[in-house]
């Protein structure tokens, strides 16, 4: 008789909090289940409490990987952008979350991982490594990355300059970048507040852009970052 082969999870001997901080994570049915239920609740809450409006959904690529690039003023941004995606893409969408903010204390790690499926992005040091993680994610067709190239939530709601990392990731690749504008999130749930106010939030999804023709160098990185910054600003209508 042939012997059975067991393949234990590679993170078997790690505690739950250590496992949450890992990336890539092992697929976990309970985690997916909790996230799906929470996503439904969050979508309902956004629709009712924030009267969320989404326009330009038809611009989202139907297949393949892509990157959502948006302005960042509030924790609501990620939730609204996820709500703009089809529900079956929930576990394939990975928002980049600041490792120094979201991946330190257990409650925030749990929220970032369970609710939005975030992955740790090191914005101060090891930026290259984090971009490498992004590249590997995008290499898997169907994965969606949600990036905020401003690098932090804007305190006054104005668009801040995009960091060139987004350019380094996209220049010379065929991966489409979809610019998005989230309006009203700064008023609804500004930086530093505990709870959200019942203000309206709108999401505008722009036309995808591709930078396959550019060479992979520093100059085009800056160019891509500037171009996306312009594209996002244009969606704001101002």
């Amino acid at each position, binding site marked *: 008789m042939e012997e059975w*082969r*067991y393949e*234990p*999870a590679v993170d*078997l*001997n790690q*505690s739950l909090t250590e496992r949450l901080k890992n990336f890539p994570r092992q*697929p976990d*049915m*309970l985690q997916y289940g909790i996230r799906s239920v929470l996503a439904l609740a969050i979508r309902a809450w956004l629709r009712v409490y924030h009267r969320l409006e989404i326009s330009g959904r038809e611009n989202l690529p139907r297949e393949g990987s892509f990157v959502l690039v948006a302005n960042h003023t509030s924790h609501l941004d990620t939730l609204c952008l996820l709500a703009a995606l089809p529900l079956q893409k929930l576990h394939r969408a990975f928002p980049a979350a600041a490792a120094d903010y979201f991946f330190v204390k257990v409650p925030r790690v749990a929220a970032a991982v369970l609710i939005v499926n975030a992955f740790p992005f090191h914005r101060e040091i090891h930026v290259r490594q984090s971009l490498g993680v992004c590249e590997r994610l995008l290499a898997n067709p169907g994965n969606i990355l949600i990036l905020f190239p401003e690098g932090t939530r804007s305190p006054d709601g104005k668009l801040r300059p995009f960091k060139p990392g987004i350019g380094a990731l996209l220049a010379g690749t065929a991966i489409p970048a979809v610019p998005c504008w989230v309006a009203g999130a700064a008023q609804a749930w500004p930086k530093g507040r505990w709870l959200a106010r019942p203000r309206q939030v709108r999401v505008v999804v722009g036309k995808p852009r591709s930078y396959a023709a550019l060479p992979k160098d520093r100059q085009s990185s800056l160019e891509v970052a500037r171009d996306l910054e312009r594209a996002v600003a244009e969606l704001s209508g101002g």
Partner: protein
Amino acid sequence: MSSPEALRNQVVLTYLAIVLALLALAGAALLILKPRLGEKVRPVWLTYRSWLVMVPIVLGCVFLGRWAIIAGTALLSIFGFKEFARATGLYRDWGMTGVVYLAIAAVGTAALVNDPFKQAPGWFGLFLAMPVYAISLILTIPILRNQPRGQLQAEALAILGFIYLGWMFGHLGFLANSDNPYGYVLYILFATELNDVAAFTFGKLLGRRQFRSNISPKKTWEGALGALAVSMALPWALQFSFPRFGPLQLVLTGLIVGAGGQMGDLAISVIKRDIGIKDTGAAIPGHGGILDRIDSLIFAAPLYLHMIHYFYGLR
């Protein structure tokens, strides 16, 4: 069973006093030994600190009453099975694991609802029939997939996982439906954990001869027999937990906890050894995984319930 009732219940208060006294005693002993043994105390200290977290959670469930004991048992089953699935690799099979999770939830529900024919809490008939439904579902999955390759292993792991970790362990929650819930539940919890601690302590102090060398090299005959002696004596000392028990039932209770508890420990060890892992997880610092902690209870609780059911009925 309710919180005010628990606070007035003599059995609950007696167990509370015993457990607090033991924890205080163990803490004091560790503090005294610390300067003499130094670093050797550290792992034991870690184990002890985890007890300080687990004991209030378990006692909290008992204070909250029937639903909390059943829900707590179901949650332990779910996370215990999750560890088993992660250790064996079954967790990659979402169909199988999904059915087992559902079946565990159904076991908890059967323990929670009223028996529609007797108007008593806990639907024992459905509870006992649960393996039939679960196994039928598990065996249906490969058929729906139209895929035989590797399915025997997945089916076998899912069935063992459900029957042992979900249904057999679920008997612990069902004990809360009996007419002496506090006495029965608190005794089995206290006695099996004490049996574990006794085996560990006797083994450390007197251990010479290996008990089951290939399965669990650290266990010794001295530890096993010492724990059995403690567990055989305990029902007589705590007879207030089950006033109806005569000598035969007291002896059986001692055997179920003393021998059954250690079998449960070794049964999980067999699984771990065959897979080639040391612990089933790292959920509880100093103890290992959830299964490493509840392994004795899984084996002892159902035997204990059916012993009670045979002699007295649950209600």
